[in-house]
């Protein structure tokens, strides 16, 4: 019984981080209709940002988080202006391959500049844990869950209660109608791409003290984000949140209950991704997908 409870607690805490990660990808897709294949690299840049702030200046990753997120968002703005903007009208596949190329460049540039060594950030809370009865909860995971919750709440508030947020949602709902309402769609695209990068970087900054930081950490995170977003339904934020907790639960359960589970847990995201695409491509809460 306590194993089940432990498993549930672990998956809820992990689900918080996954939610933040996947909301970034989902938001970017919802607005621009482009799947950001370089998203994992923004997560990686966020993790390195936090790592360097911590190792060079001794700044805690959570304090560095806003600055890191803004820095990566500015970088994303440059990427958007110089590459993505030119292919917005091209077939979806060109956009995907372009972003795939951008991701490759960022990833390998990072590997050359910062070497492929695995690094990690140590914080006062990353090695401690607290006990609730039989249940062991690492402090680092509580911190990430709380921060992720606050960030997502702030994002939802911003999307629903501010002029810009509403404009972004308008573009996501109906691009042409948004143009007629006088919304500068190109600016919303840029803004959503930057937001997407900022959320990725925030995820990365928090992942920096939970996972090891390497130039290649982005790709598995990208796949997990895909799995969550596809599971929840592309472009649906409530669906994405549900998908994040489902994936977190599935991974944790596999790790706990299946023999050799830690290794198999790596494959859960792929299985979920394939399974959902095959059996229910619209996801659990998503709109119908354009299959043709």
């Amino acid at each position: 019984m306590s194993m089940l409870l432990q498993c549930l607690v672990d998956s809820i805490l992990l689900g918080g981080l996954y939610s933040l990660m996947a909301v970034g990808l989902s938001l970017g897709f919802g607005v621009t209709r482009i799947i950001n294949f370089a998203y994992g690299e923004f997560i990686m840049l966020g993790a390195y940002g936090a790592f360097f702030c911590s190792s060079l200046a001794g700044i805690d990753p959570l304090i560095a988080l806003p600055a890191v997120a803004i820095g990566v968002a500015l970088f994303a703005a440059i990427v958007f202006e110089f590459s993505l903007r030119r292919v917005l009208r091209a077939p979806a596949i060109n956009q995907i391959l372009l972003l795939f190329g951008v991701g490759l460049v960022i990833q390998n540039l990072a590997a050359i500049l910062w070497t492929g060594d695995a690094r990690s950030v140590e914080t006062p809370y990353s090695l401690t844990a607290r006990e609730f009865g039989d249940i062991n909860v690492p402090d680092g995971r509580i911190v990430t869950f709380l921060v992720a919750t606050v960030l997502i709440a702030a994002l939802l508030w911003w999307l629903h209660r501010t002029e810009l947020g509403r404009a972004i949602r308008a573009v996501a709902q109906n691009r042409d109608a948004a143009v007629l309402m006088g919304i500068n769609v190109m600016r919303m695209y840029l803004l959503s791409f930057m937001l997407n990068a900022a959320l990725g970087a925030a995820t990365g900054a928090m992942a920096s003290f939970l996972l090891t930081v390497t130039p290649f950490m982005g790709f598995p995170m990208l796949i997990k984000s895909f799995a969550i977003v596809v599971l929840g339904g592309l472009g649906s934020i409530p669906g994405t949140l549900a998908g994040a907790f489902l994936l977190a639960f599935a991974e944790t359960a596999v790790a706990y209950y299946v023999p050799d589970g830690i290794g198999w847990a790596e494959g859960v995201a792929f299985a979920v991704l394939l399974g959902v695409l095959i059996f229910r491509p619209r996801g659990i809460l998503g709109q119908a997908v354009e299959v043709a």
Partner: protein
Amino acid sequence: MNANRESGSPTSLPIALLCYGAAAVAAVALPLAGSPLAVNLMLRAGSIVMLAISWNLAANAGLISLGHSTFWGLGSYAALLMGNRFGWPFLPSILPAMALGAAVAALLAVITGRLRGIYFAIATLALSEGLRVIAVMLPDLTGGGAGLFIDQTLRPEPRLTAIVTALGAVCFALLAHLLSRTPFHYACRAMRNNEHASQMLGINPLRFRITVLALSGAIAAFAGGVNIWYGGFLDPDIGFDLHITILAQIGPILGGIHTLAGPIIGGLATLLIAELTRMWFGEQGYSLLVYGAILIVSIMYMPNGIYGTLRRLCAPWTKRRAAAKTALVAS
């Protein structure tokens, strides 16, 4: 749309056959005469061109794969296991490798049903990464993360693997060329442009999807199967390497997607660029960096690839010649 241009003019077949013949002779002669370096280059050139042709075939039908390492990896594992478990030598082991690649590709075509565009692309990516995890987790079959060596007593001379790879590339290029002259090609193109409309015309998309993907999978598995006999060692990260997926897509995109010559030109150009970067920078990391840059530059500035750009540059000249001919007839 001058879409019918993409397969080349119909009169070019004898000339094309001559080119394929010459390429086949070179494929046999160069490794036979050359140094180990030439053998290595021929092997890589053949592999990269096969991957490019395989990827482009699927892309012709509107199926953009982001997981070609699936078929490469399956081909490698099938060839290796046929050798190690059943003592099959090099050449026969390639057949089950191709069969496995084709079977999994056909299965993928069936289960992805009518998924198109990005959804199909993501499904292929998930499949290849999923297979990598499975390969790590089944050490009894695949040797797990530690990998497996192929039975050294069965290994052919490197020269032979290079000849088979290069000849294979020529054969598959010829096959793609011959296919481009059949209704199959037009059916695929119709599917790419509009699957609903193609259905109205009496094309059964699923049948073509299965055929084209099976063919594509078999070609990539062939390349993977031959490469494992050359390399001798396989682990999940080598078999289901993202690098292979990138190599497969970069040739057609650089050379000219949906064309016959494009994947070949692009594949060879990619190899040349990879060699030059290795000479200048010496490190592996740079080649992926350069591939990324090639992808970005091709898509932004050369959406029709090298071949398309050359065609456009030559167009005024061909047009003038045609105009001169008409003028001559008229006078």
